[in-house]
């Protein structure tokens, strides 16, 4: 058995009190639950406070460019679908700079587990609005307050028929851990949006703000009904549901790809002789 300690990484550079700590704790515990060893897991991230996480845990890691974690993760998962590939990303990283990749990664349905540390703000760059910032939030750039509509990532994912769509809260690591566990167990692209207080730059959506609003989806809630899931995803106000909103059984991209029937690409060698025969077609 592994223990959370086995996943202990570098020292963190987050602010004291940051919601990211809760996420890191939950993640380590849920990885322990999988029974996997650190080297069987690869964590891909972009750039941001959230995206520093791969350094604070012990796994394989590809800490890439701002917004570009998903294509990297896709490449990894296709080249070696034996690896468990996780993506740890921020609201700016995933819904802002990387928005286009999210759309198409959901469509592809590669077996990626995407954990979005949604603090509704750009943390690392010191507090500009993110796509999930509330309308009206004032920042150094958004002097007049945010004018764009607030993105609802769950509704978006459900519209794209994402295979697994859930919302968690960094302030409740135990429940978060179980959501992460469900995402890890699910076969398919999983989007877990994690509401995360940023004590330095988001003075609107604080621990208290979230705590007074969040409630779990009902026990008997059926996450297979896409239209109901959409309706529940739209709830954002005095009461905000958490839990697994939507799940479907779309086939995995890597299982459909005929080429992968013979095992992970990384262990398939090119038969040069056979490939050489293709030259004949040019005569």
């Amino acid at each position, binding site marked *: 058995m592994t223990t959370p300690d086995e996943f202990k990484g*570098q020292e963190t550079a987050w602010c004291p009190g940051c919601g990211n700590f809760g996420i890191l704790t939950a993640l380590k515990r849920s990885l322990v639950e999988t029974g996997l*060893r*650190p*080297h*069987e897991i*690869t964590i*891909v991230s972009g*750039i941001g406070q959230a995206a*520093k996480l*791969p*350094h604070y845990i*012990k*796994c*394989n*890691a*590809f*800490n*890439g*460019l701002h917004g*570009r974690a*998903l*294509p*990297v*993760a*896709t*490449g*990894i*998962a*296709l*080249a*070696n679908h*034996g*690896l468990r590939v996780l993506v740890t990303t921020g609201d700016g990283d995933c819904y802002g700079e990387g928005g*286009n*990749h999210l*759309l*198409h990664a959901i469509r592809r349905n590669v077996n990626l587990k995407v954990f979005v540390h949604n603090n509704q703000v750009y943390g690392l760059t010191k507090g500009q609005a993110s796509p999930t910032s509330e309308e009206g939030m004032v920042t150094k750039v958004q002097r007049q307050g945010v004018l764009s509509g607030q993105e609802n990532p769950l509704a978006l994912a459900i519209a794209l028929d994402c295979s697994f769509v859930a919302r968690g809260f960094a302030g409740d690591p135990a429940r978060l851990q179980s959501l992460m566990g469900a995402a890890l167990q699910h076969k398919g692209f999983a989007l877990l949006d994690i509401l995360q207080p940023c004590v330095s730059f988001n003075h609107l959506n604080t621990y208290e703000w979230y705590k007074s609003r969040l409630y779990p989806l009902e026990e008997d809630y059926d996450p297979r009904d896409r239209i109901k899931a959409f309706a529940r995803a739209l709830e954002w106000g005095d009461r905000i549901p958490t839990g697994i909103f939507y799940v479907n059984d779309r086939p995995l991209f890597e299982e459909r*790809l*005929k*080429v*992968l029937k*013979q095992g992970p*690409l*990384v262990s*398939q*060698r*090119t*038969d*040069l002789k*056979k*490939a*050489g025969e*293709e*030259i004949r077609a*040019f*005569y």
Partner: protein
Amino acid sequence: MDYSIRIGGEAGQGIQTVGGSLARVFAREGYHVFTHQDYMSRIRGGHNYYQVRVSHDTVTASRDRLDIILAMDRATIENHRPFLNKGGLIIYDADTVGKTFEGDEFLHVPLEKLAVENGGDKIMANAVAVGAVLGVLDLPVDPFVRILKETLKKKGEEVIHGNEAAARAGAVFVQGFADRLGCFRLKPSGREARMLIDGASAIGLGALLSGCKFYSAYPMTPSTGIMNFLAGMAERHGLIVEQAEDEIAAINMALGASYAGVRAMTGTSGGGFALMQEGLSLAGMTETPIVIAEMQRPGPATGLPTRTEQADLLFIVHGGHGEFPRVVFTPGTPEQAFYLTHKAFELAEKYQIPVFIQGDQYLGDCEWTLEGLDLNRMVLTDHRVRGRALKNLPSYKRYTHTGTGVSPLAIPGSSRHLVVVDSDEHDEDGHIIEDAETRSRMMEKRLFRKWPLIRNEISPPTTYGHDNPEVVLVGYGSTYGVMKEAVDQLGRRTSVAMLHFSEVYPLPPEAGFHYMNFLQKAGTTICIENNATGQFARLLRAETGFVFSGHINRYDGRPFTVESLLEKVHDYTG
């Protein structure tokens, strides 16, 4: 004998089918062939042509002057007639172009009528046309019939027979003009079939035979040919070809796949390459091997999507923010494209760097006949640490400092060793650092230590022509063929040679061949580039201080033809 045949018409009229079939027949009959295409950025209509040169001797470029024009529409006659050589022939169908042309050069062949009568469908006019051209050249129709059988297999017997009958009817029809056409008779080559291949396929084939396992790209002319080729190979040879949502995703996916342990590649053209700049820099920082094909077309921006240019050389050499090593190959022929793609994969993995194959529409689309490709030169060295070797390592750090600057490249997941890479500056373990000392050491490792080793891998430029020339024509990439022919032509009167760089950056070391000496000794050195500003000349000056005595630049989106180049060279040689 050396004929240039131009097939012209609208997009959608089968220009490519006719031209491609003729080229294939000639190659099978053992002739030397060179083809080039000129087409518009549209699917139907407009005006396109396909030019086939067939000869008993090596041919490596297109000419402006034509021997046979096959006109599928009236515009072809109007546009291309001025280029017809004396005694040349224009084959056309008076019924479809709606007019009968007078003059010795015209030969009306009722393409559609013969198609309907013999094949049963006017769509077979293309087969009639091929048959007619073969008839004019006094070549047998049988090789074409074999090609029909191969390519139309899926369409069934009936279609094949129809096309065969149509083709034979075309040949028979022109035999009625044997007297007039006797002069076009092509003597048998006396040789076996030659290989015929375009640059895009050659790059694809080179990738396949280098063990490329992952190709992610976004469609963009003129790079799409590579993706099409590899997509056709994917299932049979176990590779993944994934169309990404954009070019940013394309390069990042390829980097992910490469990190995970497979040889990976992407391809694009200028606009898409512009979008890949950040990913390129990521490859540099993470030291992730990647091969990138950049097939140029005229810019800026969307430019001329289906034409050719060499205007991205300095963009590739200096692209991506920050400083990191890279290699740029600029093949001049499909053969070079094939071998250099192989070398690209080798160097990318050996030094953990991005390596470029920079081509252009002209290289990508032109077909050349080759003597064959030597598979024995495909030597795959696996530069990664995997399997038992990896398991046995007592410890592992992705960015271990070594004498060469090259750290062991392990496969994540295949042993208990963790593989951590980072786009931030990092330590040997791959974790973020910010201190000055670690930074300096990493810069030295990535850049200074590897650089001389990389440079030593670069082969010298190719010379052709006089050993001790007064005039040297210098170029890189797709101007190879036309420069070579120019040297042949000039060689009769001038002491001239060509110096062609297919491995352009870093510049090759001079140890083996003192090419700068070679240049400095010549009285006249002319840099020939398919761009407006002379980018290679600028690169050479930046690296060596050398200044050319002359420049020939073409930037109208068209390749140099033998005649157009010679004319410009004459301005310098008098």
